[in-house]
């Protein structure tokens, strides 16, 4: 009985001692965190994709709470998160259109100009004479963008061109950053007519290298009712501020590189459905701290 009592008393004192120590430390070394930062961070998806332009969710949360950065920058969270952040911060979230990555290349039958046997990624191949492909502007088909995509929205097709699943794309821009040929553009989803070529060669030269080049025939420029498409440097370029995606240029393009992206989608729907089940965002529960 005595041993039990001794144990109880000694353990009790020890517990009291450490408890007091902890209580003192928590008061003495308390770090003031703006509660809004925590609230904002709790409302963010927490996948640290970087699409907002900040290095992760907590950095963006700090920027929102302390620097007054707009609340609608979270891409994967979309409108729902923007609204939540707006509630926390007491501002009204402006609507922000979903944007997606678009590959500006529709290479077809582009032959290799030499046999490449180096490191198998696009950037390494690009360092060797600008890549093994005959077309020096086009896709190198090693799929760096496929590897880097955080939501697995990009997949390599058998023809050697990657394709972007618009439903999964969160417009983080990582593919645009990694592509050594700068083939990706991040564009609003409402714009779905694109000139999917970057070739600046003259028509004849371009046609020898690829079955699907922009040959700068000017047909699109003539037919455009909104003066939104212009051929500069042997390449048709769309001014997306003027473009209404009416599709007139798509009808006249002789090499089929001006494409209505929506029309092309049923062709990829088979695998889109497989992938759509995968959760785009694993949502983190808000942090609980007393």
């Amino acid at each position: 009985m005595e041993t039990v009592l001794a144990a109880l008393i000694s353990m009790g004192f020890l517990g009291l001692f450490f408890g007091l120590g902890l209580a003192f430390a928590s008061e003495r070394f308390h770090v003031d965190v703006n509660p809004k930062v925590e609230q904002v961070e709790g409302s963010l998806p927490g996948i640290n994709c970087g699409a907002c332009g900040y290095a992760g969710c907590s950095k963006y949360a700090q920027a929102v709470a302390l620097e007054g950065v707009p609340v609608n920058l979270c891409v994967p969270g979309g409108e729902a998160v923007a609204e939540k952040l707006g509630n926390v911060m007491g501002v009204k979230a402006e609507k922000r259109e979903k944007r997606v990555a678009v590959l500006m290349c529709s290479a077809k039958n582009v032959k290799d100009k030499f046999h490449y046997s180096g490191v198998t990624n696009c950037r390494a191949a690009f360092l060797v004479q600008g890549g093994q492909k005959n077309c020096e502007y086009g896709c190198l088909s090693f799929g760096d963008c496929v590897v880097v995509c955080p939501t697995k929205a990009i997949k390599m097709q058998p023809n050697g061109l990657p394709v972007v699943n618009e439903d999964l794309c969160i417009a983080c821009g990582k593919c645009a950053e990694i592509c050594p040929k700068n083939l990706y553009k991040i564009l609003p989803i409402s714009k779905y007519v694109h000139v999917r070529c970057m070739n600046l060669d003259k028509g004849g030269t371009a046609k020898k290298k690829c079955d699907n080049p922009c040959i700068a025939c000017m047909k699109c420029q003539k037919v455009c009712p909104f003066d939104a498409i212009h051929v500069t440097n042997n390449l048709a370029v769309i001014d997306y501020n003027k473009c209404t995606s009416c599709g007139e240029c798509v009808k006249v393009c002789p090499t089929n590189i001006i494409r209505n992206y929506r029309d092309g989608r049923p062709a990829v729907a088979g695998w889109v459905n497989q992938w759509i089940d995968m959760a785009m965002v694993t949502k983190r529960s808000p942090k609980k701290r007393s």
Partner: protein
Amino acid sequence: MLAGVKELKSFNGGIHPPFDGKSLSKNKEITQAPLPEVAYLYMSQHIGVPAKPVVAKGDVVKKGQKIGEAPALVSAHIHATVAGKVTDITFKPHPVTGARTQVVVIQREGDDEWAPGLDEPQDVEAMSPDDIRNLIREAGTVGLGGAAFPTHVKLSPPKDKKVDAVILNGAECEPYLTCDYRLLMEKTKEVIEGLKIIMKCLGCKNAYVGIEANKPDAYDKVRSAVGEDPHIKVELLEVKYPQGAEHQLIKAILGREFKPTQLPIEAGAVVHNVSTTYAIYEAVKYKRPLIQRVVSITGDGVENPNNLLVRIGTPIEPLLKAARLKEDANKVIYGGPLMGIAQPSIADAVTVKGTGGLLVMRNAGEWQSRACIRCGKCVDACPYGLNPSLLSILCESEHFQQAMEFNLMECKECGCCTYVCTSRRPIVHLIKTAKYELARQKARAQEAQKAKEAQKAQAAPAVTATAPK
């Protein structure tokens, strides 16, 4: 023959292939190559800012006339290498960098005549160092060892740095290449004269000539050409790659070491290669711009390896055909096998200032690279004391920042590690990719910073209105 030589000077690390291929073209005298019908002159044949064309389409130019003006200090002028007419100014992929570069196309016409004011003997004795520097700059001379660094920049050291040794680099450590060896054999006096011009320009009293021990006849020739001059020492070096790299040469001859990221000027030395020194001699003594150089056409892919004096901008296909290209040749490399650049096709490629050799390979095969087994051979071979095995692993898994901590930037891409690798890993290629990616990341970060600052400057008043504290 090599009496009196006790010990060969050398450095740590490095490699030497069992067959160095020098015997193929070693005894072939330098001959003038036929002039090109059309010369393609890239505006960027050097390290630094590309030159700007100062001629227009349709202009008639003389040999040696300046057609590209250097817009900055670290840049070099470009001169017409044949007399003729400018038929086009366009963009073409560069044979070394692969990037689209401006190129002036000249169709050869009329006599091969120098432009006025050129090709006149000059009085070197009466020149000041600045005169020499200006002549070299006007001649568009660059380092002809391969890196093509503008020579006049090397000859203008910062005022607080003292140069007490000029080194003439006659090592020619890259296997197969023999252009420097032939110049040493045939133009010994001129090269030594060029070395004296460099010494005068830098105000430097001591000079060294470094020659690898596999060129004893060149060593003898240089010694007899130097004669009794007490200021020029001729040193015999161990046969090892990269003996001709600046760091290794300075270590071997002067015993001084400096960081791989620093320039040789930190060690008080300036290194010039034999071809460059000969070009300096031509530029200063005769006011001849750099329009031709010696190119070794060699390798087991040609039946008749030779050393040719080739005008810069000559298409390589006729040169190779003249050397009797074998049917099964499957790889053409600009430069040597270790640091050279393989060409995608012989139809479009033309020579540039830095092209010291055209190496044609016959059995260039392909291999599968495997995982690193950490045998440590690359660590032994690395002349810069790096750990290439670790760097390759970090670069392969894209841990670029970590690779930076292991001194990625000190790698000079000499290729020793890739040569010795038992797993046949493309170590240099991985390191090059990592450096490229890091440079892009840096550029992107700077851009983002700028954009952010601009955005902040715009958004600042609006924010205080909508989100009061």
